[in-house]
C-alpha cells in the first residue's frame, strides 16, 4: 500500500488527509488522518470526492484567450508563452497610462495557499496597493480588528478549554470540520457550549445555553455579557489592572448604552438567560469564543469583533490554557510577510490604497500604526494574518474599476476566486469587470468570473502540487502536503504565473526560484534543510508555544497593553469603544435575509459542476418558517423571488421550522454551469447585497450579510432549466 499525507485545500480549513492506493491502482483514496492530534479524522464529502471535482471533463487544460465579446464564452486555446507575453504587454500599457495602482488583484487564499506571498510581492514591486480578497468578509477582517485590541488574531485552545461560545457559527461535519472535530471532542471532555443564533441549529439544540438573538444584535449581547461580568465582579482583576487600558471608558459605555433592559429588548433574550450565559463563560476555567463568520458580516462588525476581543481579555483568557493563543508565526520558516517585500511599496502608493481613508481598519492606514508594535512582539512589521491585515477594501475597489473614482483601475486579476459572485453588489462587480482594459483569471474551470475575462489560465489543484502551509500566517502550525498526481494538460501553479510575468516585466531578479519547490527550499534555508526532507519529517510542525507570552513581551499595541478603548480606532477618527448599529425592516421589506449559508456539497461557489455532489443538491433553495411560507403565499418546492434594495434572486422554497419567523436563509454562491447563461444573474446571494454606505460597516467598509431587509413572493416569470439530468456529462 502506498500512502502519502496531503493537505486538503478545498476550503480554508486545510484538513490533514491520508491518501492511499494499492499496487496497480491509479487513483488514491482519501481519508481523514486519525493520527493528527488536532482534529483527528477530519474530512468532509467535498474532500472525499475531490478527485471527481478535479478529474472532470470541464477542467481547463490550456490557457484560453477571449475571441468574442466578454461573456459570450468564445475562446481560442493559446500557449502559456503567448498568454504571459500578451498579459505582460497589456499590464505594462495599463501601468504606463494610469499608474501601478490601476492594477487590482483578488485572490482566494485557500486555492492559492502555495503562493508564499508572491502575489503581494509582485504587486509591491510594481507599486500597486490594491490587493483584495474574499477574506475581507471572512476571517481576514476579524484578524485585522483583533489586532486593534491586543495585536494578533488568537487561535482557540479547544484541546484544553472548558467553555465554547459559538457566535452563530454553524460548525458541522461537512463545514469547518477541523474546528468541529475539536469542538466535539472538547464537548465530550465536558466543555460547556453556549450558542448565539437566531435559529435552532444543531449546535444550538445541543448547547448548554442557546441565546436566540435577533439578527445583527451580536454586539449588543456581548456588551450585555460585559455588563454582567463587570457588575458582578467576574472579571480578572489582576489582568485588567496590569494589562489593560480603557477600563473605565468601557465601564461607562456599558452603563450608559448597554443596560440589561436594553440588551434584553434588543436581542430578544431574557435578562436571566443573558446573566446565566455570561456567568458560565466568565467563570469557566479556560473559555473560548472561536472566530465566527457571522460577526464578520454585519454593519456592526468592527464593534462586535471588538466586543468579543474585550470579553476574551477581561476574563483572563488571552494566552491562558484553554483560552485564546496569541501564537505569532513559525520562526523556522522565512515568513510570508518578509517575502511580500511590503517595504518596497512607497508611502505614497500605500495612501492610494482603495478604502484607505474612508474604511481604514484593514488597510495600510491601520497596519502602519501597528507596524512597530508588531515588530517588537512578533518580529514581523506587517504580519499578513490570514492574508487580511493590509488589504484594499472591495467595494471602493469595484467602484474605482467601474467608474474611475477616485482614480481608474483598469487591470483586474482574479486568482482562484470567483470574484463576480464572492462579494456584495454583484451588479457593480460585473460593471467593474466590463470596464477593464485587461481581465485575467487563474482557475480550474470556466466560472462566471472567468467568462468575463480576456485570458483564463489553467490552475493546478491541491492534489497536483506540493504544499507548505504556515497556518495562513495566523498560528505557528506548519503543515506539509505531498503531490499525488501530475497536473493535467498544461495546468500550472500560481507561482509560475507570477514568476512568468516577473520575467517579462523587469522583475526577474526578485523571482529567482525556478519552481514552487525551490521557493519552499528558500523558505527553509535557515533550518539547514530543504522541502523534501522537511515534508518527509513533518506532516504538522507545532511551534514551542508558551502560554502567557505577553508577560515577557507586552501586547503588540501602541500602549503595549490590551486596548479596551482602542487608540488606533481613535487615531483613525472612529469611536474607540464598541457601539451598536443595525438595519431595520420596513413596510416594503418586512423580512430579514441571512445570506452566505454553507451547504454540505459546496464550498463557496465551487463544486457546482461535480455531479456526485450536485445530485444531492441541484438547485438553490431558501429556508423559511412555515408561518412565513403561508403569509407570503409560497409553496414548498416551488420557486420564489427574494428582493432587496439591491436586486432580486430566485430560489426554491423549503420549509424549515428551525428558522424563526421573519427570517429568510439563503445559501451562498449559486450558479448553474449546465445552463447556457450559468444562471449567474438569477441565484447568487451577491445580487441582493447592497453596498451603499448605510449598508456597510463604517470602520471596515464591508457589507451587511446577516439581516438585510427583504421581501419574498412567488416567482412570476418561470424559466426552463436544462438541469444536470438534461446536460451533457
Amino acid at each position, binding site marked *: 500500500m502506498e500512502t502519502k499525507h496531503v493537505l486538503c485545500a478545498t476550503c480554508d480549513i486545510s484538513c490533514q488527509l491520508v491518501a492511499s492506493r494499492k499496487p496497480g491502482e491509479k487513483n488514491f483514496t482519501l481519508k481523514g488522518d*486519525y493520527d493528527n492530534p488536532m482534529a483527528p479524522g477530519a474530512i468532509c464529502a467535498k474532500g472525499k470526492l475531490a478527485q471527481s471535482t478535479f478529474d472532470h471533463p470541464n477542467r481547463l487544460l490550456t490557457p484560453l484567450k477571449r475571441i468574442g465579446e466578454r461573456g459570450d464564452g468564445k475562446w481560442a486555446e493559446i500557449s502559456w508563452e503567448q498568454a504571459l507575453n500578451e498579459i505582460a504587454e497589456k499590464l505594462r500599457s495599463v501601468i504606463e497610462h494610469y499608474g501601478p495602482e490601476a492594477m487590482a488583484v483578488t485572490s482566494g487564499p485557500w486555492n492559492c495557499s502555495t503562493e508564499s506571498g508572491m502575489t503581494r510581492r509582485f504587486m509591491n514591486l510594481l507599486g500597486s496597493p490594491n490587493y483584495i480578497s474574499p477574506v475581507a468578509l471572512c476571517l481576514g477582517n476579524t484578524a485585522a480588528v483583533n489586532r486593534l485590541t491586543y495585536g494578533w488574531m488568537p487561535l482557540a485552545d479547544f*484541546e484544553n478549554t472548558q467553555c465554547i461560545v459559538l457566535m452563530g457559527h454553524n460548525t458541522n461535519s461537512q463545514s469547518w470540520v477541523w474546528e468541529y472535530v475539536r469542538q466535539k471532542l472538547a464537548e465530550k471532555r465536558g466543555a460547556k457550549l453556549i450558542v448565539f443564533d437566531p435559529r435552532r441549529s444543531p449546535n444550538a439544540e445541543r448547547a448548554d445555553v442557546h441565546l436566540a438573538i435577533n439578527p445583527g444584535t451580536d454586539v449588543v449581547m456581548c456588551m450585555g455579557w460585559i455588563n454582567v461580568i463587570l457588575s458582578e465582579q467576574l472579571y480578572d482583576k489582576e489582568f485588567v489592572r496590569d494589562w489593560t487600558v480603557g477600563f473605565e471608558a468601557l465601564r461607562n459605555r456599558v452603563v450608559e448604552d448597554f443596560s440589561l433592559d436594553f440588551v434584553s429588548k434588543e436581542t430578544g433574550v431574557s435578562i436571566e438567560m443573558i446573566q446565566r450565559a455570561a456567568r458560565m463563560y466568565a467563570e469557566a476555567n479556560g473559555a473560548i469564543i472561536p472566530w465566527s463568520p457571522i460577526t464578520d458580516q454585519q454593519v456592526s462588525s468592527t464593534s462586535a469583533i471588538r466586543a468579543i476581543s474585550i470579553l476574551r481579555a477581561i476574563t483572563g483568557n488571552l494566552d491562558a490554557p484553554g483560552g485564546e493563543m496569541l501564537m505569532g508565526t513559525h520562526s523556522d520558516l522565512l515568513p510570508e510577510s518578509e517575502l511580500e517585500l511590503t517595504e518596497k511599496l512607497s508611502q505614497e502608493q500605500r495612501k492610494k490604497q482603495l478604502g484607505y481613508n474612508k474604511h481604514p481598519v484593514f488597510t495600510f492606514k491601520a497596519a502602519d500604526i501597528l507596524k512597530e508594535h508588531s515588530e517588537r512582539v512578533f518580529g514581523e512589521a506587517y504580519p499578513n494574518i490570514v492574508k487580511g491585515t493590509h488589504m484594499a477594501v472591495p467595494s471602493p475597489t469595484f467602484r474605482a474599476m467601474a467608474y474611475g473614482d477616485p482614480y481608474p483601475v483598469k487591470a483586474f486579476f482574479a486568482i482562484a476566486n470567483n470574484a463576480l459572485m464572492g462579494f456584495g453588489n454583484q451588479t457593480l462587480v460585473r460593471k467593474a469587470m466590463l470596464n477593464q482594459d485587461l481581465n485575467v483569471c487563474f482557475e480550474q474551470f470556466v466560472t462566471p468570473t472567468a467568462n468575463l475575462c480576456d485570458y483564463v489560465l489553467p490552475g493546478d489543484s491541491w492534489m497536483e502540487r506540493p504544499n507548505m502551509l504556515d497556518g495562513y500566517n495566523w498560528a505557528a502550525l506548519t503543515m506539509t502536503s505531498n503531490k499525488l498526481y501530475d497536473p493535467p494538460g498544461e495546468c500550472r501553479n500560481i507561482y509560475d504565473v507570477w514568476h512568468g510575468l516577473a520575467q517579462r516585466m523587469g522583475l526577474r531578479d526578485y523571482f529567482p526560484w525556478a519552481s514552487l519547490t525551490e521557493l519552499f527550499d528558500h523558505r527553509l534555508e535557515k533550518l539547514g534543510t530543504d522541502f523534501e526532507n522537511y515534508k518527509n519529517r513533518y506532516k504538522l510542525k507545532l511551534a*514551542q508555544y508558551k502560554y502567557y507570552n505577553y508577560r515577557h513581551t507586552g501586547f503588540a499595541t501602541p500602549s503595549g497593553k490590551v486596548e479596551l478603548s482602542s487608540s488606533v480606532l481613535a487615531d483613525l477618527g472612529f469611536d474607540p469603544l464598541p457601539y451598536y448599529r443595525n438595519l431595520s425592516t420596513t413596510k416594503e421589506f418586512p423580512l430579514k435575509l441571512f445570506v452566505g449559508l454553507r451547504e454540505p456539497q459546496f464550498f463557496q461557489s465551487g463544486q457546482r459542476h461535480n455531479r456526485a455532489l450536485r445530485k444531492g443538491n441541484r438547485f438553490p433553495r431558501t429556508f423559511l418558517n412555515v408561518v412565513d411560507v403561508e403569509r407570503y403565499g409560497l409553496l414548498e418546492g416551488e420557486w420564489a423571488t427574494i428582493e432587496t434594495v439591491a436586486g432580486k434572486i430566485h430560489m426554491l422554497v423549503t420549509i424549515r421550522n428551525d428558522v424563526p419567523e421573519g427570517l429568510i436563509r439563503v445559501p451562498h454562491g449559486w450558479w448553474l454551469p449546465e445552463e447556457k447563461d450559468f444562471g449567474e444573474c438569477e441565484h447568487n446571494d451577491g445580487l441582493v447585497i447592497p453596498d451603499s454606505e448605510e449598508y456597510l460597516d463604517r470602520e471596515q467598509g464591508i457589507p451587511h450579510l446577516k439581516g438585510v431587509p427583504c421581501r419574498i413572493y412567488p416567482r412570476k416569470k418561470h424559466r426552463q432549466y436544462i438541469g444536470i439530468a438534461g446536460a451533457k456529462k
Partner: protein
Amino acid sequence: MRVAGFISQNHSNPVLTHLAALLSWMNRGRYGKGALDFLENEDSIDHLDYSDVDENT
C-alpha cells in the same frame, strides 16, 4: 503541544514511530470510546440532501 508535535512527526527510528502511534492512540482515547463516530454517522438537519426530490431534474 510538545506531545502533539511528537505525534505528528514521521520518525525514522522505529521505536519512536511506535511511541508516536501509542501516544496518538492515547490522545484519541482520552475522549472516550466512539468519540469520533459522528464523522461517519451524523444525523443533522443541515446535511441537506435532496436526491429523492430532485431525481429527474
